[in-house]
């Protein structure tokens, strides 16, 4: 029975999961959830995802939500294809450095990147007014945080070391939307962040989903 990804094509978090499914060449079916119709807040949906958020998966009898948890589950359960290094290291120190990088994404990048995108992309889409001072705060904080990234990425290729991990991939959906939100930091902060961002967004797995995740049955 094929893995079912309940989400919608352009959702950032749905594309985060779809990227990793592509990295590991896992067939999946995208089961559309239409947030404009409030489908993610319906009682039947809340049974599966009590916070009313997108996406969740159903795989082999397991229902799982939270995109980063889903990605970790995929990497844990399935073998990386030949030539693809495992996206989560298994050795103690490699795993610890991965967890450090995954935590950096969540605490030092996501609040500010997603906040900027919310103000200048999502709110206008929903006819809501942009809070310019919230946007400015997100961008100036993100700029300071990316100084940390520039230092790290000057010493190693990726956030957890010299191999790509989930921690790098987690950044892509919001990082790729910053330009549309009027923020060019990913390509102007410094040469190391620019190199890393360009490599990430050129990956075949992201290119396959960036304009919309869709069901994929053979790689």
């Amino acid at each position: 029975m094929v893995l079912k990804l309940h989400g919608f094509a352009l959702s950032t978090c749905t594309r985060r999961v779809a990227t990793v499914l592509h990295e590991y060449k896992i067939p999946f079916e995208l089961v559309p959830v239409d947030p404009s119709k409030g489908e993610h807040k319906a009682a039947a949906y809340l049974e599966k995802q009590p916070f009313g958020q997108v996406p969740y998966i159903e795989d082999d009898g397991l229902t799982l939500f939270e995109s980063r948890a889903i990605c970790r589950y995929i990497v844990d359960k399935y073998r990386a294809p030949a030539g693809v290094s495992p996206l989560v290291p298994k050795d103690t120190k490699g795993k610890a450095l991965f967890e450090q990088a995954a935590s950096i994404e969540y605490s030092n990048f996501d609040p500010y990147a997603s906040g900027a995108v919310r103000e200048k992309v999502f709110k206008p889409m929903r006819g809501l007014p942009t809070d310019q001072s919230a946007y400015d705060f997100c961008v100036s904080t993100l700029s300071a945080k990316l100084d940390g990234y520039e230092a790290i990425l000057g010493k190693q290729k990726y956030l957890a070391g010299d191999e790509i991990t989930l921690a790098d991939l987690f950044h892509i959906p919001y990082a790729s939307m910053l330009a549309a939100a009027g923020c060019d930091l990913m390509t102007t902060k410094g040469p190391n962040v620019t190199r890393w961002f360009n490599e990430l967004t050129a990956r075949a797995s992201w290119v396959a989903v960036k304009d919309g995740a869709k069901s994929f049955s053979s790689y």
Partner: protein
Amino acid sequence: MAILKLHGGKQATCTRRVATVLHELQVPFELIEVDVANGAHKSPEYLKIQPFGQIPYIDDDGFLLYETRAICRYIAAKYPEYGLIPTEPKANALFEQAASVELTNFDPSASKAGLQLWIRKMGYPFPTDDKIIADNLETLEKKLDAYEAILSKQRYLAGETITLADIFHLPYGVFVTYAGSESDSVMNRASRPNVARWYKQLISRPSWLAYLDGVTTTTAY
């Protein structure tokens, strides 16, 4: 083997999270206080270790690690017998789901409101904002309705036994209660009896009680 060194602040919120988990796992550690008041965490030497200029970090026999949840995961993985990170694949997936719920659905509002409420309670000379506290507590109330649904079916967030995902809700889960009273706060409402039950279990743990007055070097358990 050298004792684990926890570089942070005696009262600092994230240092307390790490100390709680070290205590859960009965790991001896030395607290080395970073002089945050004088900007020690922003010095070039410090930034070489922690490029975001934040506390805490650990030095485990020469292995340096920062980000509290990463530190806690690293230590818990060394002592799987405590079960704080389940290893069976399905249980592990549900743990990761719960750990992510804490990050995305609890921490953003709980840490914003909690930090300010903690600053006020401690009497620190930093500005606080009633609106930030109120708005974030309101968000948190709604999130905890979903927690109530989850915790009405199982004892803890990842299943029937406690995991790091539950413990990560400390210390902010306590600080947000400073806006209420012992008998009625956002974590302890009659309308959410399962959240209240779960919260009371968390704050009764010896690992939380051990550092109520601040983190201290702990060499014996």
